[in-house]
């Protein structure tokens, strides 16, 4: 009993320190925003433009896919990359699940007067002096926040699904090709994720959680692919070589989606959900 009490106290103390550290780091990274119109617009460009944001990752993936020097080498790379794509689906599922169980408000939201449930009481949260970037989209979103026109689906930031998804893909590329992987990882961390933190959309803990999910699940799935489903997966890469035109078309479609951060797939699933509601419940 005493041990449990001591452990829970230590855990709470650790969590509190972690939160403080996270807030300090978040404000430090965000401190560069809202000072230069040019800088903020460049950051916003890399956040909003799919080609600049994720196109680089897609290019690295395709280069790794086609870059084997021998047939065996190509097969080995493709096996890793196929497994990576499978892992990315699991990672997205996990980050979505986590976002439904843990709720941390976005740093830019925390500039406002917020009450958070702690036990049975609503406690006013300490406001974070997050700087708002000067680009048009950020300013528009901030004005919408001040006028209460906010989407409740988009208030939470934990964990970063961008971090989970792109770190999975980048790590997979790194496993297939060290040089291309370093480019993909560097782009993910220093462009995509840094921009998310600079603009106040995510804190380091959101990014770290997304990255941890990516690392854990990719490791497990790569391990399972080697140990349990090795025979099955060994059959796929030779098929991609035999039917190279078809496999190229498929991998293009997949990379197109990766580069657009799965926008079209999400829209497709949204349509499926709407069809389900329409058929089952008659809701239009």
């Amino acid at each position, binding site marked *: 009993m005493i041990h449990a009490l001591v452990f829970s106290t230590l*855990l*709470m103390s*650790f*969590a509190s320190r*972690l939160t403080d550290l996270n807030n300090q780091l978040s404000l430090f990274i965000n401190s560069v925003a809202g000072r230069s119109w040019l800088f903020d617009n460049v950051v916003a460009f890399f956040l909003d433009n799919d080609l600049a944001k994720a196109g680089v990752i897609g290019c690295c993936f395709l280069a790794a896919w086609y870059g084997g020097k021998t047939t065996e080498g190509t097969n080995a790379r493709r096996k890793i990359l196929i497994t990576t794509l499978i892992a990315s689906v699991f990672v997205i599922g996990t980050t979505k699940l*986590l976002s*439904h*169980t*843990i*709720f*941390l*408000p976005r740093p830019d*939201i925390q500039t*406002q*007067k*917020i*009450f*958070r*449930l*702690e036990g*049975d*009481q*609503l406690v*006013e949260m300490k406001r974070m002096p997050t700087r708002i970037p000067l680009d048009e989209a950020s300013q528009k979103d901030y004005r919408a926040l*001040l*006028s*209460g*026109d*906010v*989407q*409740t689906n988009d*208030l*939470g930031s*934990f964990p970063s699904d961008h971090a989970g998804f792109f770190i999975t893909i980048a790590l997979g590329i790194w496993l297939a090709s060290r040089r291309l992987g370093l480019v993909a990882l560097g782009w993910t961390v220093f462009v995509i994720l840094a921009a998310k933190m600079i603009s106040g959309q995510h804190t380091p*803990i959101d990014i*770290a*959680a997304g990255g*941890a*999910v990516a*690392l*854990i699940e990719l*490791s*497990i799935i790569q*391990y399972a692919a*080697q140990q349990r489903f090795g025979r099955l997966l060994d059959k796929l890469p030779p098929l991609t070589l035999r039917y190279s035109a078809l496999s190229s078309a498929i991998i293009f479609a997949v990379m197109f989606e990766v580069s657009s951060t799965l926008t079209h797939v999400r829209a497709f699933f949204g349509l499926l959900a709407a069809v389900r509601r329409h058929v089952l419940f008659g*809701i239009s």
Partner: protein
Amino acid sequence: MKRLSILFVLIGLFFTASCGLQKEGLVLMTDQSYKASVFATNKMGFGSPDGLIWHKGKLYIADEGGSALEVWSKADGLKTLMDSSFGISSPEKLVVDSEGNAFFTDDDVGGLWEVDAGGNRRLVAGRDKGLVYTKGIALAPDGSILVGDGEQHEVFRVTRDGAVSEFIGKEYGITRPEGLVYDDKGNLYIADEEDNVLYMLDPNRNLHRLIDRRDSFSPEALWYVNGLLYIADEHFGKVYVYTPNDGLKPIATFAGSFKQLQGITVDDQGDLYVAVQTDLKHKVGHIIKLSKESTEVAAR
């Protein structure tokens, strides 16, 4: 590799545990003059509340999760006025007349139900009289009760003796009359939660579409007092105040586990009370109070 994977899993579990956070409720204040506090939790004894109404110092609760109509007062605590043993299942919205008779709808078994001031319970009019999927409810100036039906897309007038007649027919195009309330000029406000429209039926029976913002507005419950129409938005977790001159103004946004707003009412001090269905399936709910910061200071 196997050991490494196990290590990663353990690190992940530790990380999640160290966050020490459950999915939590959050209230984001747009109107900075308000503050939010928890008025009641399940510890009060209710399940998951839907309709709320303050009447003469008592808070009446249509407890959808607990399948009961309840009343709370500071002196007596929570008392059950009617529960599922009388055949009700999912109490939705409610009204209380000046004599203390409480009427409520039920969107599962349908009908209009009453617990009078003496504690007598009855079904005023049921499914057999066409009240199939009853949602919104309002006290009409003539003493009858208006009941919105979400399946038949109509609003019915029900007299105290149980006679049912059509008040707003299908031809008006209201899909789900979830919230109903009269203002002091005889206008009836209607919240259509399915089509995401706030209507107003004027005394000449002309229907006006006051707010029609399908993408970010879905009115669930209404409360009118002192020239102000308060609106609880279920889908977008927002509390608004509406006046014809100023239009729609957000007061607060509810997020996380607080997103499902159901009922709204105002007490004699002007404080707002919002019913939140935190988890209807597991009968968890909160009643959140939104009070003016200045009210608190004045009270001290």
